[in-house]
């Protein structure tokens, strides 16, 4: 068990390293160097060249990646904070500490000042959506998996398929037209302050709805498949044959076993939700993590983008590990020594 965990942790670390290197390599395509972005559009070419030389931004890719990694783990100080660059970038945490994501050229602030706040906002949004997705998809999945191909199954399946076909921006447009324009009972933007005259809880309704609409159908379909597989098992037939009531067969025998596989699916949805929040946050002007990723990649803010990717990949691999561990706890047949 310990060996399994250590193995997985090493794998996680390797995945995150590779992922951050891939992002670093892709960002090299960006026209416009770090120096130009730090100095702004009004700096002379000479100033840009000088800063480029100072930051050694013309070194080979691998060398620069190594330097970025060194700054991240706190082995070397952040070159952008060096007073000799004349940029006046100051991180209150100092220039050399573990978890230093560097300086955001977009916000002109340390990445750590921006990103955690935004991540917290997104966690609230995604968490609320998740709280609704789980029970909704379980109810839909279990009900349609009870009798495969029956009228209830077909109806619920078509409903789920329809909802999964509505991407966030489309449902955003539909819901805003309905509940903001035609029947104004909800705010159309969610900036998380009350300047627009709407209390903050109201601002969560539409973004959460948009996320739930696109996501719950997919999870429900997964739970359905798992429920169908369980209902075909011999022990269910035995339970029915010995005269057990349908309700006890479902609640006592089928449900617990049907929930094992979807447990992993549900955890993997956290990764899917991060994709979803990018669009949702843009539609509703929500100050979150997804919009930060979008802004950073459009601007070419490598530090922010690297930090954001590293965090999303970390979330993905940690949920994957939790999924596997939970799977082992729930299903005694799958135990790794």
């Amino acid at each position, binding site marked *: 068990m310990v060996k399994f965990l250590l193995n997985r942790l090493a794998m996680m670390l390797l995945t995150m390293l590779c992922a951050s290197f891939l992002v670093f390599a*892709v960002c090299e395509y960006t026209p416009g160097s770090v120096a130009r972005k730090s100095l702004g559009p009004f700096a002379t070419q000479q100033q840009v060249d000088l800063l480029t030389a100072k930051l050694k931004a013309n070194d080979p890719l691998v060398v620069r990646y190594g330097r970025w990694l060194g700054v991240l783990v706190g082995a070397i100080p952040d070159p952008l904070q060096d007073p000799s660059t004349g940029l006046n970038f100051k991180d209150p945490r100092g220039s050399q500490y573990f978890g230093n994501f560097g300086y955001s050229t977009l916000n002109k602030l340390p990445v750590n000042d921006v990103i955690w706040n935004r991540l917290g906002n997104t966690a609230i949004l995604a968490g609320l959506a998740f709280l609704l997705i789980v029970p909704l998809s379980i109810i839909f999945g279990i009900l349609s998996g009870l009798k495969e191909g029956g009228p209830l199954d077909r109806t619920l399946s*078509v409903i789920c*398929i329809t909802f999964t076909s509505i991407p966030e921006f*489309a449902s955003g*447009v539909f819901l805003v037209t309905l509940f903001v324009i035609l029947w104004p009972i909800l705010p159309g933007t969610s900036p998380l302050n009350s300047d627009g005259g709407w209390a903050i809880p109201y601002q969560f309704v539409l973004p959460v709805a948009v996320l739930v609409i696109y996501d719950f159908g997919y999870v429900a379909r997964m739970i359905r498949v798992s429920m169908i597989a369980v209902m075909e098992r011999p022990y269910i037939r035995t339970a029915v044959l010995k005269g057990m009531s349908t309700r006890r067969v479902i609640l006592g025998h089928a449900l617990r076993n049907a929930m094992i596989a979807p447990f992993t699916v549900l955890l993997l949805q956290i990764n899917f939700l991060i994709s979803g929040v990018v669009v949702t946050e843009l539609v509703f002007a929500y100050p979150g993590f997804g919009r930060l990723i979008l802004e950073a990649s459009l601007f070419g803010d490598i530090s922010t983008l690297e930090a954001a990717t590293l965090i999303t990949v970390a979330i993905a691999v940690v949920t994957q590990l939790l999924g596997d561990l939970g799977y082992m706890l729930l299903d005694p047949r799958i135990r790794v020594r």
Partner: protein
Amino acid sequence: MAALDIPDAVQVARIKRQARSNWMRIFYSRTALIGLFLVTFWVAAALLAPVLPLPSPTDSDVMAMGNPYPSAAHWLGTDILGRDILARLIFGARTVLSVAPLSVAVAMIVGITMGMLAGYYGGWIDTVISRFSDIILAFPVLVIYVILIANIGPSVTNIVIATTIASAPGIGRITRGLVLGLKEQEYIAAARLRAENTLYIMLVELLPNCRSMLIVDACLRIGYTIITIGILGFLGLGLPPPNPDWGGMVKESVTVLNVWPLMSLIPSAALVSLVLGFNLLADGMREAWKP
């Protein structure tokens, strides 16, 4: 009455025999038929776009700009620049229905190759391919698209590249699972015994047996890719103008949503209907081809 029953029974038997041929079975599922109808509608609209009596999708009708509501000249109204929405919708279908299937086709080729190699050979080839897939699959899909397209620029080629990178690992994983199950079958052993080469075994023995799962998956992926292209357009990373692009149409008009909601509602509804078509079709095929 009884005399009439006999030919009926014969006919029923013949229909049933025909239904066993896979493609015909789709027509027995109502959801698949609805999906097929939606997809066919848009494919027909896209194919017929040049011969339909439509206004130009890129020319502005200045007279319509003050009153962009549906009229005899513009059946679905005009957008903020006075361009005919119906024409932009139908020409947009051309873009989306060529880029999405093309991207998925390329991604399928790459993904199936990865899965075949990993599943058939196993060993270190499997380890390398699976680890690489794990890394890509750890990214949230949209983040891959946004990072890639924002950096290499929006174009058809780049969308194909991004789709391939984002979807091939998933396709590879499915194929690998299927191949792992199939390669222990007797007919594979028989083919090996006949000293068939590996390429023959992969393409002639294994691939056709993965067919139904992969076709369903491709159909679902076309739906997802249409959504992704729409999202990219909505984020401002879509195909460059003047190509009409559904996501881009929503983006352009969403700022005036509270004045002229139709401009955003129509392309959104079009996108949903096409994606729904592919999803229902995929579901119908899965039900019809269930082993």
